[in-house]
């Protein structure tokens, strides 16, 4: 493990570059550069558990509505963004779909579902 890591806080426009000082075992020994307490909290969380909401689209095969927008129901580890993207290209969906419907349960065992963020009534419905 690298002895030093820099994380930019996204809490405010300041964007503090916070250096995380780790001891030999990889435990956090200190933080340098955070201007506030919330920033320190953010950096520690980001270090332990860097999660993001993934948003993407899945193909529908419907010419009038080729893509259904989707998101993960929870934030997932950022290292899992790409593997989940691969799933979004493979998944088959059938209309009608309503925003909030689950498209894939526990996608890639992230604990998050892939859910639709828009309605897709299909060819019978009026867009």
């Amino acid at each position, binding site marked *: 493990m690298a002895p030093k890591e820099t994380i*930019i806080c*996204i809490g*405010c*426009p*300041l*964007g503090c570059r916070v250096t995380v000082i780790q001891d030999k075992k990889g435990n956090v020994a200190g933080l340098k550069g955070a*201007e*506030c307490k919330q920033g320190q909290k953010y950096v520690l969380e980001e270090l332990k558990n860097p999660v*993001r*909401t*993934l*948003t*993407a*689209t899945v*193909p529908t095969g419907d010419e009038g509505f*080729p*893509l259904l*927008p989707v*998101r993960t129901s929870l934030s997932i580890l*950022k290292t899992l*963004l*790409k593997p989940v*993207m691969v799933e979004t290209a493979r998944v088959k969906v059938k209309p009608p779909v309503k*925003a909030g419907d689950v498209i894939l349960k526990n996608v890639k065992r992230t604990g998050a579902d892939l859910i639709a*963020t*828009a*309605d897709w009534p299909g060819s019978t419905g009026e*867009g």
Partner: protein
Amino acid sequence: MASRVDVAVIGAGPAGLAAAIAAREQGAEKVLIIERAEQLGGLLPQCIHNGFGLLYFEQDMTGPEYEKAFIAKAMSLGVETRLETMVIDLDAERGITAVSRKHGYMRFKPGAVVLAMGCRERSRGAVGIPGTRPAGVLTAGTCQRFVNIEGYMPGTRYVVLGSGDIGMIMARRLTLEGAKVEAVVEIMPWPGGLIRNEVQCLHDFGIPLLLESTVTFIHGEERVEGVTVCRVDAERRPVEGTEKSYPCDCLLVSAGLIPENELSRKAGVELDPVTGGPVVDQNRQTSVPGVFAGGNVVQVHDLVDWVSWEAEAAGRAAARFADKGELKAAAGVRVMPGDNIKYVVPHTISGREDVTLHMRVTQPGLKATVKAGGILSKRFRSVRPSEMVVLDLKGEALKEAGLKGELVVDCEMRGGG
């Protein structure tokens, strides 16, 4: 148009929807949204990323989700819509001329008008990049539509010019879709978008952000084959000898947004050369009585939540105007941008009621104090031109100050730089 329209809203994006809802809630009976596209929502359907509604709904929503909440509300309130209808003229007496394939030519005079046309992207032509004119040069928003709505990938290897939010969000989106984004190139010494986008769209994927740099040449005959990137000096002129070439098949231009005000001009609405939008009072009434404006047509916001709120103020005031046939201008006091303030909206305030001031700073800095006359001073840990500064002034405090004529807003740096 047969029946009388109380409030006509031009544009069905987030601003238009919010204005129409607010006008109905304020009591306007017939509220009509006129939209040139075939669906409601403006650009929201293609903004599939999250980050919408954090302030307005206190929820992290995607563009389609945010749009859906507003459309559902507008429909439940009986807001009427005319889609695929283009307003081609607005006169100084609120006369609207519109055309559509289905209804032909229409002329009518609503009780009040809300301008909610939003903004459009600065294109290659507007930023003037030398080189050939091959396929593969497009704005970030056009690319977003291709990728998120139509299902086309316009290229495989990209350079993004400009680090506005849409540019950075597209850099991430394209990377996730399997493309290679070589670099995001920014002419200013600081990124053009929000810090969270810099981190989550660029750093997360190891996409280089080249500050104080610009694209000086586009190569390729039929198709983009690459671009030349140069460092720029303090005057933002390219520095000779710093050229570096980046092979790519697509150049995305994300070089700022311009409020879309052709109709406002036709109506004789006074425009602010700095914001590019109408000069408005506290009610978002423009210089033409009965014509109101809200959202990105007034000033380019960084958050949709503020677009909705601003348009709601315009919609409410438009409903009041339509009801009474007039609305006293809330314009007793002129708000003037002072030190390190680029602009302030609204341009005039009543000096009696609560008001929210939106502004942008000219230079970034640390430990800033933004002062509105002697009435309010607010400290900020840092300010950046890309992040709007918002100041809430209380009517009581304004009245007490007994403002005469103008209120100057300054931004002072307490240290660092």
